[in-house]
């Protein structure tokens, strides 16, 4: 059991405000991912939850109990550090059993717990080794094992996979998700990698400059980003943005005059914006298609064949680059002139403050 609640939590380092009034509740057994660019405050927020960093303002509740002043080891949370933070002079078994030994647990009981964790994490063959004799993936597992043996209510991970190579990262991602299911514990996972966030999270918290930009399920964030920042951060390659102005609007469509001179029609707004409003149009790369006729026209700049799909970089007359995602059989060539049209009427509109006005999603 561990549900967490953050109420207007803030953090000041001297006169620098690293976290600005975060409100968040995390349900028991939820897998929550904090994602955001480097320096946005993810680690700070996680460390405040862990108890390693003082909470400057606001309240943290763990299982309904006010926990601001509870020392880290009494919060029932275990943390896995980005650097793994293994004790270099101890063997794997000693690393995993250290907390239990310090707590005065009998030897036999420690051995049993360490053995069980080692079995789950496939660390049995290396129990007698020192950390420096392990591979990156094994070190990572030891760090997780050290957390598991304490039987915590919740796990905190700070970019645990960022030191691993790409293949291992994908594998550990899957193992962590399985572990979450097996342990039935609350997990908070910090990453700057939106793909990790999308693939692992029950819910994603997008942070930017110490502010929570949006909280939601991965698909919710992808389809209904609350603002320009989330729209640009979630999804790879990035959503294409076009500044423009409303020319005409009614309940069935908005007609936009883009800054490059093109006219663009977005179907079906919920409440039509006023004529003349400055807007930003957002279209994901896969929501464009190359058509004989379309509102945007340009020249193919670069073609990237990724196997499954093809990314086409189209340079518009205005000089802006638009990324289009097409299928693997795309035959476009560099230098070709192409027209782009919306696929299935999908597009998003953001007002001048960056907040989402409307996501066109027919059906």
């Amino acid at each position, binding site marked *: 059991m561990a549900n967490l609640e953050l109420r207007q939590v803030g953090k000041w380092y001297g006169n620098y405000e690293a976290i600005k009034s975060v409100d968040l509740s995390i349900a028991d057994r939820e897998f929550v991912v904090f994602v955001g660019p480097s320096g946005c405050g993810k680690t700070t927020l996680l460390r405040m939850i*862990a*108890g*390693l960093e003082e909470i400057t303002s606001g309240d943290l509740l763990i299982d309904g109990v006010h926990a601001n002043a509870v020392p*880290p*080891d*009494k919060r029932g*949370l*275990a*943390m896995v*550090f*980005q*650097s*793994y*933070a*293994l*004790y*270099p*002079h101890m063997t794997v078994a000693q690393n995993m059993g*250290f*907390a239990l030994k*310090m*707590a005065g647990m009998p030897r036999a009981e420690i051995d049993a717990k360490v053995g069980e964790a080692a079995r789950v994490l496939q660390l049995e063959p290396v129990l007698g080794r020192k950390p420096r004799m392990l591979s990156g993936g094994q070190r990572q597992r030891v760090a997780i094992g*050290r957390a598991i043996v*304490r039987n915590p209510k919740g796990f905190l991970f700070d970019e645990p996979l960022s030191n691993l190579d790409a293949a291992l990262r994908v594998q550990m991602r899957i193992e962590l998700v399985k572990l979450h299911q097996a342990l039935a514990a609350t997990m908070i996972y910090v990453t700057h990698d939106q793909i990790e966030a999308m693939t692992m999270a029950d819910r994603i918290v997008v942070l930017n400059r110490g502010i929570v930009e949006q909280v939601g399920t991965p698909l919710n964030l992808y389809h209904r980003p609350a603002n320009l920042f989330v729209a640009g951060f979630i999804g790879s390659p990035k959503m294409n943005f076009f500044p423009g102005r409303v020319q005409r609007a009614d309940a069935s469509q908005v007609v936009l005059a883009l800054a490059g001179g093109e006219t663009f029609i977005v179907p079906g707004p919920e409440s039509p914006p006023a004529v003349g409003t400055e807007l930003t149009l957002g279209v994901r790369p896969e929501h464009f298609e190359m058509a004989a006729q379309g509102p945007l026209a340009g020249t193919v700049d670069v073609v990237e064949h990724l196997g499954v799909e093809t990314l086409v970089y189209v340079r518009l007359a205005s000089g802006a680059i638009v990324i289009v995602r097409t299928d693997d059989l795309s035959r476009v060539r560099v230098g070709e002139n192409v027209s782009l049209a919306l696929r299935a009427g999908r597009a998003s509109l953001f007002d001048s403050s960056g907040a989402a006005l409307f996501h066109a999603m027919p059906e």
Partner: protein
Amino acid sequence: MDQDKASPLGTAAAWIVAFLMFFPILWMTVTAFKTETQAIAIPPIVFFRPGMESFAHATAQAGYMLFAENSIIVSFASTLLALLIAFPAAYAMAFQPGKHTQNLLVWMLSTKMLPPVGVLVPIYLICRDLGLLDTRTALIVIDMLMNLPIVVWMLYSFFRDIPRDILEAARMDGVGPRKQMIYLLLPLASPGIVSAALLAIILAWNEAFWSINLTAAHAGTLATFIARYSAPEGLFWAKLSAASVLAVAPILVFGSFAQRRLVRGLTVGAVK
């Protein structure tokens, strides 16, 4: 490039400088094996039959053993005390630094700039009033205080090299500061602790000012031994040289064993 290759001229110059610096010690050692007549002969005698008479005199009649014992006890005890005090101090400074930690460190080191003679009278009076004149206790405490800033600095820089994450992981594991020091810092910083200890022992061994001024026949160290010897026997070069060799030899042997360790300890943090 070119800089990697030493020029023959530079090499020769380095050897000459090294020889000039080493020459007094060499000459002292050579003189110690001469007779008194050979020692004062002019021009100096280079080839002679080495004898041990001067050493015999220094050890038997001048009470070398007592001074050597004092030197060993004072240098080791003061070092141990300094380590015991510096360890928690360096821990606090490295892992729970406050606003003024850096200033405090610099201030501590700046006390080393003070000329010792400036505080000779007060310290002498304190020792006299406490009945500590000519006792090892006084020397142990003074040497400890003298070395404390350096030991704190060295331990501090070694602790700074230990990743903070490791101690934070321990904190999450419910391991308090005392257990962190015993189970994590002590083993992880042991090379640094050894370096600091070696340096403190050598500095305490070589310390002459306080031992000459505060001790006499009972608690004198080898530095006092030479100083006292040079007065009555000042004209006997061979005996004085033998006494000096006896005073310097132990720490030279000790130092050469410790050398590698010391260089590593003193340059830690400088290169990453």
